[in-house]
């Protein structure tokens, strides 16, 4: 999952980047509103964390602007002054949730994954498609109740496919969401990872969880069901 962090305070920005990367997100950073707007509209972002008090373009205006430009991904606001006035204005501008400073990273992470689920159309932290279950909180994956061990990269690909189960996701989109800006796009890492995922989830080729659509990308074709 690719997350954009727009925060003018360098220390918070760096801590967030370190924590988010460790939690398996690929992270884009922006230090002011204008930079943030560029990243928010030009990069394939899945979710954004936006501080309200930004230089050049305020967080409120940044959110209004990216919503006006048709961006529908989840937006989490950071507020320094934990006042309802700011929260309500931010949420009215188009944000989806808020975290007040000073925050614990665990809270940010919980709210981010909740936002990702919500924008993917999932109600709870547990995603289930056919026999495959994935818990976004514990990052545990099981097939027919049996736990499957995945590497971090494999997990990220599966989570992305499951969050948007039923949609076709291109190879380049998956690549972009796995790594940050300067990744070598010609690499066939995604193909290798998808191949490994298929073998781990479906060693006997019975459920065929991930479909390949030639020239278009991948699709998780198992039916969604409540976990």
């Amino acid at each position, binding site marked *: 999952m690719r997350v954009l962090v727009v925060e003018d305070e360098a220390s918070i920005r760096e801590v967030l980047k370190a924590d988010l990367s460790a939690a398996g997100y690929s992270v884009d950073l922006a230090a002011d509103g204008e930079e943030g707007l560029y990243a928010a509209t030009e990069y394939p972002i899945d979710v954004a964390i936006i501080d309200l008090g930004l230089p050049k373009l305020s967080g409120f205006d940044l959110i209004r602007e990216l919503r006006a430009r048709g961006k529908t991904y989840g937006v989490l606001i950071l507020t320094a*002054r*934990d*006042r*309802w*006035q700011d*929260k*309500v204005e931010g*949420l*009215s501008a188009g*944000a*989806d*949730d*808020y975290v*007040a400073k*000073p925050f614990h990273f665990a809270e940010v992470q919980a709210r981010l994954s*909740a936002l990702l689920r*919500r924008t993917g159309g999932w*109600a*709870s932290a547990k995603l289930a498609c056919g026999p495959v279950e994935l818990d976004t909180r514990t990052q545990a994956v099981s097939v027919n109740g049996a736990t499957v061990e995945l590497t971090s990269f494999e997990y990220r690909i599966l989570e992305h496919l499951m969050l948007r189960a039923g949609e076709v996701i291109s190879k380049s989109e998956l690549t972009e969401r796995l790594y940050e800006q300067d990744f070598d796009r010609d690499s066939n890492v995604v193909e290798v990872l998808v191949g490994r995922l298929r073998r781990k989830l479906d060693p006997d080729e019975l459920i065929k969880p991930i479909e390949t659509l030639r020239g278009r990308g991948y699709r998780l074709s198992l039916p969604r069901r409540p976990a």
Partner: protein
Amino acid sequence: MMRGPPSVSRRLLVAVALPLLLFFVLTASAIDYVFRQQSTAALRDRLEEQVVALVTAVDLGFDGKLVVNLLDPESRLDVPGSGQYAALRDDTGKLLWSSPSLAGTDLVLGSKLPVGGVDFRYQLARDGSTIAEMSRGLQWAYGSGLSKKLVFTAADSTAPQMRELWVFRQRMAGWFGALDLVLLATMAWMMRRALAPVRRLEEEIAALESGAASQLGEGYPRELAGVTSGLNALLESERNRIVRYRDTLGNLAHSLKTPLAVIRASLGSAESDERRSEAAIQLEIDRIAQIVEHQLKRAAAGGGATFGQAPVPVLALLSDLRAALLKVHASKDLNIEIDAPPELGFLGDSGDILELLGNVVDNACKWCRSRVLVSARFDPDRGLPRRLSIVVEDDGPGIPQELRTRVIQRGVRADEHVPGHGLGLAMVRDTVTLYGGQFFIDASPALGGARVELRLPGR
């Protein structure tokens, strides 16, 4: 002393005196005009009579010449320069007779007039006085079938008439002037009385400035009561604000002492388990953050300053808050109902009311199973000034009795760690108190969960 704009009483006095003066001048001119008209008419009548007297005084002498027999031996016509004159001319304009009074005056009386002609005119005498003269052309009969065409002229000085006019004018000016003065004096006195409250206000404000008084007094007339009560409210809220800032500083310093002491102790202790002391420090840092947050909010609360603020529309605010909370609690199947008339307004800072409602309604959303009901009304128990009653109910587990009393009790600080529902409620209580409002917690009869009621100033 600096010359500022003229005082209110001076403005009023000038505003009244000018029309009054204008009125008197116009009235005096009108009366003067009527008086002059009448005296001119009287003069004409008198001259007319003199012409008639002259006609009867003329007789035909034995020599066929005309003689004038003045009947009155004391007639002023005999006294030279007396101011009363008469003359007789024939129809060719030839002077037949003139009164002895004309001697030495070189006045020329009368002129050629046809029979039936009348002439009234003024002329200036040598001594500067004005002479009014009247001439009549008549067919004068002196026997059967015998008659002459004659012009009779009588003249009189207007000096007595002018004297009369001046006396009249002086009297009129005297009376009007006196009346004017009396009216103005009355007006000035009334204005002093009417403006007495303003002067009192001025004195009381001076007393406020010097610190001799802390409030403006009661008993101002209706026109000023709004200003004075508003000013009193402003003074009161400013004073409260200062007290609050002082309290906040005191509380802040005081409440930071404990966690700081714990941190210092943890750092200095010979505790072998580093992770345990780190955890202790982490806990205290969280506590410090919480304290700072709480005190910042308290300090930011506007706190009852209702002076010069438009009422905040409560329904619009609740709708915004509802939309925001539905987003925040999107993972829950939440149903927030709002029941409030659109004209309901809160008297105070919009940030404060949003903070109050945000805390209370968010709490309800956190704890409810699925339903939250927010209803706002004018408080039926109270007359004026009007108060709002805002009730927030949910279908959650409710607030335990022990916590209710702890939150409601004054003196329990909101930064003490109160789990669950209590977190924002002590803060709410503090803000409600700032507005002189009331705050109740009990169980909701309708939904079965918690019921929180706020009573606040409204309009």
